[in-house]
């Protein structure tokens, strides 16, 4: 191979790989990310059944119920709307009624119940997911003493 051909081979291979990587990243962005919603957004969102989303808000006071076995139901609220959630597993240490929570999962066909496979509440007693706080503020909900959050 001549000098020029060698260089072309290396540059060509590199460019091909990078283009493939970019396409892969774009494909993954279209497939593998979850949008964040609070209950009030859902009516406008028109989600296809089974779309993975993150649902954030406060755990409604008095809504936490333990069903048979490990299944837990509770409601996530932005104080205006609420969404019932079921979750099977152990809740995080900081999960409490009246506190912020983010549930990841989807709505199954036509059901109004959100099936969560992951429930997050973070490692600080005053923690509310930033997403939740921002959305709640945008909806005009006063967070009272919880304004000063991470």
């Amino acid at each position: 191979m001549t000098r020029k051909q060698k260089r072309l081979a290396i540059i060509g291979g590199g460019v091909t790989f990078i283009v493939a990587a970019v396409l892969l990243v774009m494909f993954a962005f279209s497939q593998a990310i979850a949008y964040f919603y609070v209950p009030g957004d859902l009516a406008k969102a028109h989600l296809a059944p089974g779309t993975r989303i993150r649902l954030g808000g406060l755990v409604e006071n008095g809504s936490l119920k333990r069903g048979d076995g490990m299944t837990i139901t509770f409601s996530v609220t932005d104080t205006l709307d609420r969404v019932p959630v079921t979750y099977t597993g152990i809740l995080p240490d900081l999960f409490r009624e009246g506190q912020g929570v983010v549930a990841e999962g989807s709505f199954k066909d036509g059901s109004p119940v959100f099936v969560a496979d992951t429930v997050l509440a973070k490692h600080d007693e005053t923690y509310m997911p930033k997403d939740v706080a921002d959305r709640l503020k945008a909806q005009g909900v006063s967070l009272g003493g919880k304004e000063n959050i991470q």
Partner: protein
Amino acid sequence: MIIELGHYALVLALGVSLLQAVLPIIGALRGDRALMEIGTVAAKATFLLVAISFGVLTYAHVTSDFSVQNVWENSHSQIPLIYKFSGVWGNHEGSMLLWVLILTFFSALVALFGDNLPETLKANVLAVQAWIAAAFSLFILLTSNPFNRLLDAPGEGQDLNPVLQDIGLAIHPPLLYLGYVGFSVCFSFAIAALIEGRLDAAWARWVRPWTLAAWTCLTAGIAMGSYWAYYELGWGGWWFWDPVENASFIPWLAGTALLHSALVMEKREALKIWTVLLAIMTFSMSLLGTFLVRSGVLTSVHAFATDPTRGVFILMILILFIGGALSLFAFRAARLKAGGLFAPISREGALVFNNLILTTAAATVLTGTLYPLALEAVTGSKISVGPPFFNMTFGLLMLPLLLAVPFGPLLAWKRGDLLGVGQRLFAAVAIGLVVGSAIYYAQNGGPIMALFGIALGAYMIAGSLTELYLRSGLGKVTGAVALRRLSGLPRSVFGTALAHIGLGITLIGIVAVTAFETEHIVEMKPGMTTDAGGYTLRFDGLRNGNGPNYSEESGHFTISRAGVAVADVWSSKRFYTARRMPTTEAGIRTFGTSQLYVSLGDGMADGGVVVRIWWKPMILCIWGGALFMMAGGAVSLSDRRLRIGAPARARKKKPLLEPAE
């Protein structure tokens, strides 16, 4: 009074760094030795001053001096002594001070061990180090002063975040920073070379040990952080693709690329410009990581209390250094002569392939980490980019590299023989296939990707051993000769093999856990049993206890196999009284490289308790592999070439006896 001394020492350190940032460069321009020598003295002095400052903060924490705001916010008189020490960096201010301490430590090391460097290069390197030190000292003094006093000293502190009350906090951040910040030396070398406009193989030889040292520490820091998250958080996960984890992983990927490209430059004088760019990018990624973690743009356990001015300040530092470095690169890179030529199929070609994939993978992780921030800033919509994205992109991109790992060291420099290497790797491929099919039978099938992944890991291990086997000539010569040949090999050959073997081991661990772990969530009452991973766990009951600053409820489990009790484990939930915060202390039992992981959930009304039990097959391979990689880094670092290969000044021989005069 002592506290104020710590504050003054830090101010003084800033002053000395400013001198160190300017005078040596002027000295290097004018050829003034005295001015250049100031860099060496100042680097040692700055380190000493920052160390004093850090020592004072440690003193305040250990003596629980709650008149210091930082101590009051992050400590408690009742916590065990070790957490009073580690609590020094378990908060924003202290952790930035540790950052600067380690930065000045590396500058001092360059000053101490840089005698064999050309005078001007050393002066410029130390000056660039001082720019960084000055910027971050200023950041601490203006926005994050750990020595702020409270007017009325409270009687008790607010306690250290319970999640951080663990031995992990004593080890993980210092190791991580040694890696992160260690790359600053590579950055400074790159900038110094650009300032001088001179770059040769010797430069690569000087940079390589620093890269190796930083890389080894970063590997250790990341692995330690992963293991810590695994046992402390109680979720049984070891990597979450959390932005903060990515912030440390991106410099690791870039640093790994740098390690390999510096090799090409050192041996063949090729890839010079690329290596310099990579050195700049690696530390830039460290800076970006510092920004992401410390500025509060991300919510995470690592973002302690946040304050917008800090974010803006670090962002300014970031723009200044990355922008400045890249501009300098753009102006000066053309002056650097391109190096030797090589065929696409050659050792150099393989290392280019390595660099291409590692940097693309790093860019992918970076994109996934920053995309949510960018999208929110531009459109306001919020997304989470989580494990599905990273597994899909990063996993697929790395695959060709993993396949190629055993090929690299077997290819010849300049012009390699791919077919010949393939033939020599025949045994390694066979071993991979055998292991894959063995797993297939042992698991009665199993996901095809998992079998492929484990086979790939086995092939990488066998392939890395192939090089040692071939170079020893085992099978062709007698054992004694082979052993002599092996011991004659440069240590870096063993380092390479160890690191590549480690990668294979980690891969096997990751694949095995991902594919074959089992999870059971059950409600258990005392006396009940559950099966997991071939073991039976019997729940014996709960017990209440008290620690120094927490109360806890612990469940006791007896683990038996085929009816015979083999082990027992305690799993607890703690409640930290000062912060009114619960934590889960998982119970973990190790069997070979596999683990049983027991996490306690909520108590039920009828006296039962929810228990989450994982069987984690071969999970220890993940961190065991990292240990191999670290060993590889350490062994390479001890290579003769790096110790004495760099042109060293002849030591002055002292006559044993002074001649009588």
